[in-house]
């Protein structure tokens, strides 16, 4: 049961106030993280026993799926239809669409496969914006420095430099796809400051930045001679005689059949792991964010990085229950909203990097200064304070927030919202180079499934930038080299190696991966469900 002041009592004690000073903080930086950040929870990590990262520490839940058995073997492919393409993009979010568009633009034959519908992704839910150093007082160097600092200097320098340099061009490309940004009266792009950034660098469209981006990219893909296979999650990659990536096996949710897609190269853009609910946290992620790409890439031999590092976004809605985990954009804090504990006190500089703000919220709750609402707990996001200082701002800039208020029967203009950190982002992923190439030949990884850009903590607005920047680069690079690639024999041969290693390490073979869908929605639980075919159980 949650500890802290009961919701009704805390709300009764709350008084809107325009200004509130922040008391000096005794615990901050690294010490705060070590004491309260979930990445440091005792016993949450385990060493990987097989694969390219053998011996390295990884979150237990992720380790379980990375070391799971494949869902299929060669026998399942007997009679499966075969489709041949140039570039196969797996994933229909922002990164996948950007990669597909760039590859098509470069003249390649492109097939895009997505688990659900095109555009069903975390991209569509992104609110805050996209970082690019376009303010006169800002520079790509500052963008680079801020990104490296926030990631605790663990990001890959080349990747971060590439992103910071290309960011303005990415914004231009998005506008040319038809994406709108909020502008000032002279038509300049408005910018806001991300927590942990040294300048105003986040471009946005209301709090619908991701929605605006996604509907434009989706329309662009649908009008671009790109073959789209929807409701077709990838269950395994295909390899050639050298073990290079040569396509994928898709499982059609429409007719429960497998399809083999042979491709010159594959671009994985499958997103993150929120729906694995690492450490039992609620998540802001899309229904399909089950870490599939990491599992597929790992089995094919791609090296992963930073598997112990996840981002918990400070402002997930904690109450009411049916909306728990829903995200409130950092833009609200950027616009000046305070965080208050049940006593109405501020306890952290709200614009510190996300890992520190989340840790401070967890501290308040753990030490009994939180607000308890049934099984949920949290602290206040002081939106009425913003309304007092800048009347009308919330309504104008944050329509989605106001709408969320309506759905939760809480008017954010007069009543603070109860928030609690929500599992938001996988900081690590497949190691890539500047072209998005993983260490497994023929396999590119872009977007959240890739790693190395954000180090151990990501800045707001750097994800939307990273997916488009590296999505485009991977698409163009893969298309350019299409004619150089040929595969003699395409099969699931790499699975023999995987299974041998699992057996040697005495790991259980009854767990199958990738997950594909969250626990609550496992298709195999329901016999009359017309979706994925049943998993084979441990009994055979």
């Amino acid at each position: 049961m949650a500890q802290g002041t009961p919701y009704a009592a805390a709300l009764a004690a709350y008084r809107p106030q325009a200004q509130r000073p922040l008391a000096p903080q005794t615990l901050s930086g690294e010490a705060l993280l070590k004491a309260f950040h979930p990445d440091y929870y005792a016993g949450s990590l385990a060493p990987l026993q097989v694969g390219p990262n053998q011996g390295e520490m990884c979150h237990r839940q992720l380790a379980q799926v990375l070391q799971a058995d494949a869902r299929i073997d060669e026998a399942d492919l007997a009679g499966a239809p075969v489709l041949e393409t140039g570039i196969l993009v797996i994933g229909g979010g922002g990164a996948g669409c950007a990669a597909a568009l760039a590859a098509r633009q470069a003249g390649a034959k492109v097939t895009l496969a997505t688990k659900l519908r095109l555009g069903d992704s975390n991209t569509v839910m992104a609110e805050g914006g996209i970082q690019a150093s376009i303010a006169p007082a800002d520079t790509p160097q500052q963008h680079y420095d801020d990104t490296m600092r926030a990631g605790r200097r663990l990001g890959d320098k080349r990747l971060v430099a590439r992103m910071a340099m290309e960011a303005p061009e990415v914004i231009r490309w998005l506008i040319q796809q038809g994406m709108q940004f909020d502008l000032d009266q002279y038509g300049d792009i408005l910018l806001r400051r991300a927590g942990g950034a040294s300048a105003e660098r986040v471009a946005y469209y209301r709090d619908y930045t991701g929605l605006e981006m996604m509907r434009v990219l989706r329309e662009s893909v649908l009008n671009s001679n790109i073959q789209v296979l929807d409701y077709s999650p990838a269950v395994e990659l295909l390899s050639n005689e050298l073990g290079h990536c040569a396509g994928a096996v898709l499982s059609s949710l429409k007719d429960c059949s497998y399809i083999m897609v042979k491709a010159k190269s594959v671009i994985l853009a499958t997103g993150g792991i929120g729906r694995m609910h690492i450490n039992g946290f609620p998540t802001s992620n899309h229904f399909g964010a089950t870490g599939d790409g990491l599992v597929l890439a790992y089995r094919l031999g791609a090296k992963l990085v930073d598997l112990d590092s996840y981002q918990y976004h400070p402002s997930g809605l904690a109450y009411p229950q049916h909306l728990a985990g829903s995200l409130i954009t950092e833009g609200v804090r950027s616009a000046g909203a305070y965080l208050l504990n049940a006593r109405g006190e501020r306890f952290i500089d709200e614009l510190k990097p996300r890992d520190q703000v989340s840790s401070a919220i967890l501290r308040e709750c753990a030490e009994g200064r939180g607000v308890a609402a049934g099984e949920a707990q949290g602290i206040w996001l002081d939106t009425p304070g913003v309304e007092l200082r800048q009347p009308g701002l919330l309504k104008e800039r944050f329509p989605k927030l106001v709408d969320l208020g309506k759905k939760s029967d809480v008017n954010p203009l007069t009543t603070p919202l109860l928030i609690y950190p929500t599992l938001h982002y996988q900081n690590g992923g497949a190691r890539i180079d500047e072209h998005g190439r993983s260490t497994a030949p023929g396999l590119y990884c872009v977007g959240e499934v890739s790693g190395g850009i954000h180090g151990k903590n990501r800045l707001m607005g750097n994800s939307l930038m990273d997916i488009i920047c590296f999505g485009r680069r991977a698409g163009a690079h893969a298309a350019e080299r299409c004619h150089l690639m040929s595969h003699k024999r395409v099969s699931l041969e790499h699975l023999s190696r995987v299974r041998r290693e699992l057996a040697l390490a005495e790991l259980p073979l009854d767990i199958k991966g990738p997950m594909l869908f969250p626990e609550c929605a496992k298709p195999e639980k329901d016999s009359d469900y017309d979706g994925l075919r049943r998993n084979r159980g441990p009994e055979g």
Partner: protein
Amino acid sequence: MSDTDDELVRVTINGKEIRAPGNLSTIQALWFAGYPRVKGVGCLEGVCGSCRILVRRKDSPEVAMALGCQTLIEDGMEVHFLVFPTPTHHAYQLDEIANSWEVQAQFHRIFPEAVHCRHCHGCDVSCPKGIEVEKGVELAGKGRFREASELFVACVMCDFCMTACPEHIAPNHLGLFARRVTAYFHIRPSNLISRLEELRRNEHPIRTD
């Protein structure tokens, strides 16, 4: 939360009666009752437009269109999940439009049905986001794309208006066209362009040490 039977509400989803706590959305209710709904589930925050449902509330003859993740179950409610309509036949590339003087002519070539609007309000009634869809169609038809574009800010491309339109106008795609041409031809931010020029002149090398 207590799950005793008398606190659960009864709701019929795709013909199956289930019981679940009243503070759950239609999708959460299905999961609660053990039905692993996958198709038509997406962001669960009302922005992806995947969970299209028809809803009839107790003692009401009216059938409303809504998003499943945004609709809390009520006792006696009937819900039906819809599949997506076939994709729109409207196809275009922005770079085929030579310049902004050509947009109106191109619009009528790409969306010839727009002028056939019967003003039946089907699109307005079906929109789960309360967008003035019909007005947007009319404005775009008159070439007032920027105004039309503003009406479709909250559109999640759920395609309800497309399903509802007897003239096959595809109002949401039309709205998105209005939005895209507005950006494509009219967003020219001086702060962005200045930075791009500086980068072209190599004025911003990055030190990575």
